[in-house]
Every structure is written in structure tokens, then in C-alpha cells.
């Protein structure tokens, strides 16, 4: 009986010492060097960074567009241009994260061979669904020149979605400028249209 009692006491004492050990073991802290703290709370630092950026791309299965002037069929008519190859619509895709309340815009310009007497126009639609955030406002139809023209304005933090049918639809047309009709020459000018996303402010 005594042996049993002693054994029980021994087990209980062992049990208590385990608990005491557990308390000591649990007393860690953030850096392992500071004195132990008996506290059910602890905290650590965490930093989150978001960088600003802007990216632009064009989508369209055939981005080499060609327009041909069909000779006037009836004497007295002006020359008319029709698209002979390339996608009839291209799509302007972009992604942006803004800095504070600043916004971005997209500009376009045309470079390449002289095309006097001809207007190269692009119609820029409003942004399609499929993106999110503060997408910009399409300019509608504008005449492209060798200097930058705003084609989308007021772009905040957003994305349009990548690919065709996403972002702003671009449709091109070429027409004779009636005020400078006399400058039109029989030629085959080759042009490059460049879109740039840039700070608006």
C-alpha cells in the first residue's frame, strides 16, 4: 500500500515538473535574446509594396493594315479608300497602377512616308467589359499626325484584359483631305502608327 502511494506521488510530482518545463519552453519571444515574457500576445512586422507601372499592347490577328484607293468610276467623283488587308479592328490593351491620384493617357502618332492630302483616321471606342478598375475614355475618331494625339485619357489603376475584344477597339480609315486634295500623289506610302502610354499629369 505504501509502495503504491509512493509511486502515485512520484508520478504526480513528475507530472507537475513537466508542466513547469512546458511553461519555460513556451516563453520564447520575437528575437530569442530578450528576457522571457509571460504574455499570450506577440506581434511581428510585415511590409506590403505596390509599384506603379503602365503597359500597353495591341491585339489583332493581322496588324499589317493596307488601304487602297479605288479609281473613281464616274468622272467627277473623288478618290475613295477601302481596306484591302489586315484586321478590320485592332484592340488596345493596357495595364496600369497609378501613383496617388495621378492618371495615365495613351497617345498615338504616325510616322513614315509622306502622305500629303490624305487623312489617316482612327476611331477609338470606349473600353470593353472584361477589365477592371479605372479604365480610360476613348477619344472617338481622330486624325493621326506626326505629333502625339491623345487617344485614351483618364487612365487610373486598371487593366483592360489582354487580347481581342478587350480594351479599346481601334478602327482605321483613310480618306482624301478635301482641303488639300491637290497634294495627293499617286504613290504607296508606308506608315507606322505608334501608341504610347504616359503620365497625364
Amino acid at each position, binding site marked *: *500500500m*505504501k509502495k503504491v*502511494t509512493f509511486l502515485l*506521488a512520484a508520478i*504526480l510530482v513528475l*507530472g*507537475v515538473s513537466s*508542466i513547469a518545463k*512546458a*511553461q519555460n*519552453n*513556451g*516563453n*520564447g*519571444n*520575437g*528575437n*530569442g535574446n530578450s528576457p522571457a*515574457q*509571460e*504574455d*499570450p*500576445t*506577440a*506581434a*511581428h*512586422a*510585415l*511590409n*506590403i*509594396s*505596390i*509599384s*506603379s*507601372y503602365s*503597359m*500597353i*499592347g495591341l*491585339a489583332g490577328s493581322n496588324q499589317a493594315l493596307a488601304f487602297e484607293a479605288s479609281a473613281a468610276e464616274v468622272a467627277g467623283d473623288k478618290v475613295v479608300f477601302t481596306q484591302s488587308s489586315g484586321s478590320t479592328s485592332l484592340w488596345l*490593351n*493596357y*495595364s496600369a*497602377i*497609378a*501613383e*496617388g491620384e495621378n492618371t495615365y493617357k495613351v497617345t498615338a502618332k504616325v510616322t513614315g512616308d509622306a502622305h500629303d492630302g490624305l487623312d489617316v483616321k482612327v476611331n477609338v471606342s470606349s473600353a470593353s467589359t472584361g*477589365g*477592371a*478598375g*479605372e479604365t480610360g475614355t476613348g477619344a472617338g475618331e481622330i486624325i493621326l499626325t506626326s505629333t502625339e494625339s491623345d487617344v485614351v485619357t483618364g487612365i*487610373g*489603376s*486598371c*487593366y*483592360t*484584359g*489582354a*487580347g481581342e475584344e*478587350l*480594351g479599346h477597339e481601334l478602327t482605321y480609315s483613310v480618306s482624301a483631305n478635301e482641303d488639300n486634295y491637290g497634294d495627293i500623289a499617286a504613290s504607296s506610302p508606308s506608315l507606322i502608327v505608334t501608341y504610347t502610354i504616359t503620365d497625364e499629369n
Partner: protein
Amino acid sequence: MKLLDAISCFLFLALFSLAAGAQESTSHNLGIDVPEVALLALQAENSSDLNLHATPPNTAGQQIKTNKEEQSGIWVNYSSIVRENHKRKVTATVVGEIPQGMTLKVKASESRGDGKGKLGESLSWVSLRNGSVDVISNIGSCYTGRGAQNGHLLSYKIELDDEADQYAKLKQSETSLQILYTLTDDN
């Protein structure tokens, strides 16, 4: 010498029989006080700061990349002694302002290392906020072991807020937060 041994032996037997004859059993009280214990600490594997980044997409038109999981290298250690049929949990609270347009999530691993007892269970990914959210549940009487590689390893990630019109609120920013963990009763 033999005589001395004989006397010693006699005295021992005499005393033993006297004691045995005086009382057949005896007892005394033994009180044990097991206090409740609730201790929690965070142990970092290294001293470098924990940084989460939102990065630009690969292609124009795509959304910002945020969902890369980041193992923090920070371990939750705790010791707990509970009353019978009681449980505890670990909650987390953000001190500071999470950048708008995104959600900050944390996941505690299942307990690893030298722990013993009724260790807690991970609640997987949970969204953090400026109020307490449960991260580990079902903690009974246990200890995780002390230091890195013991207890629950924390992982973090940021995700875009799914609610409409939140994307426009994402702005260039550098945000420093404190994440506060508490071992508390789960009643």
C-alpha cells in the same frame, strides 16, 4: 566484527517490528495546484523583414500579380494548460491599414517539431483585418516546443479584393503593418 554485525541486525529487526507493530498504514495529504497557462510567442528564423510585393503582369491588359505565397519564417510557439473541456485558439489582428483594393491572408501550418499534447489545428488561409480573426483552433493542454522549427509556421499572401470597383483603389504604396497574435479562450 561478527558480533557488531549481529547487534546491528538485531537492532534493525527490533526497530522494524516495533514500527510495524505500532501502525499498519499511514497517509498524508498532497495538494497539487496546476495553474492555467496561456503563453504565446513568435520566433523568427532570421532577422530580415517580411515583405510582400504586388508585381506588374507579363502582358499588357492583364491584372497585377499578387498571389505569390510567402513563407514568413516566423513560427508561433505556445504553451497552454486549460481547464477541463475548455479550448483555446490563436487569433490574429492587423495593426495598421491594409492597402485598399487587396486582401491580406495568413495560413498557419499544422504544428511541427517537439510539441506535445492537444496542439491546435490550422484554419488554412484566412483574411486578416483590423479585428481579430481565428488562425489556429482547438488548442487544449499542450506545448509546441520553443523556437524556430517548432509550432506553426506562418505563410502570407496578398490577393486582389473581389468586390467591384476595388481595383481602381490599388495605388503605388509602401505599407508597414504589425500583425498581432493572441492565444485566447475559445468559448
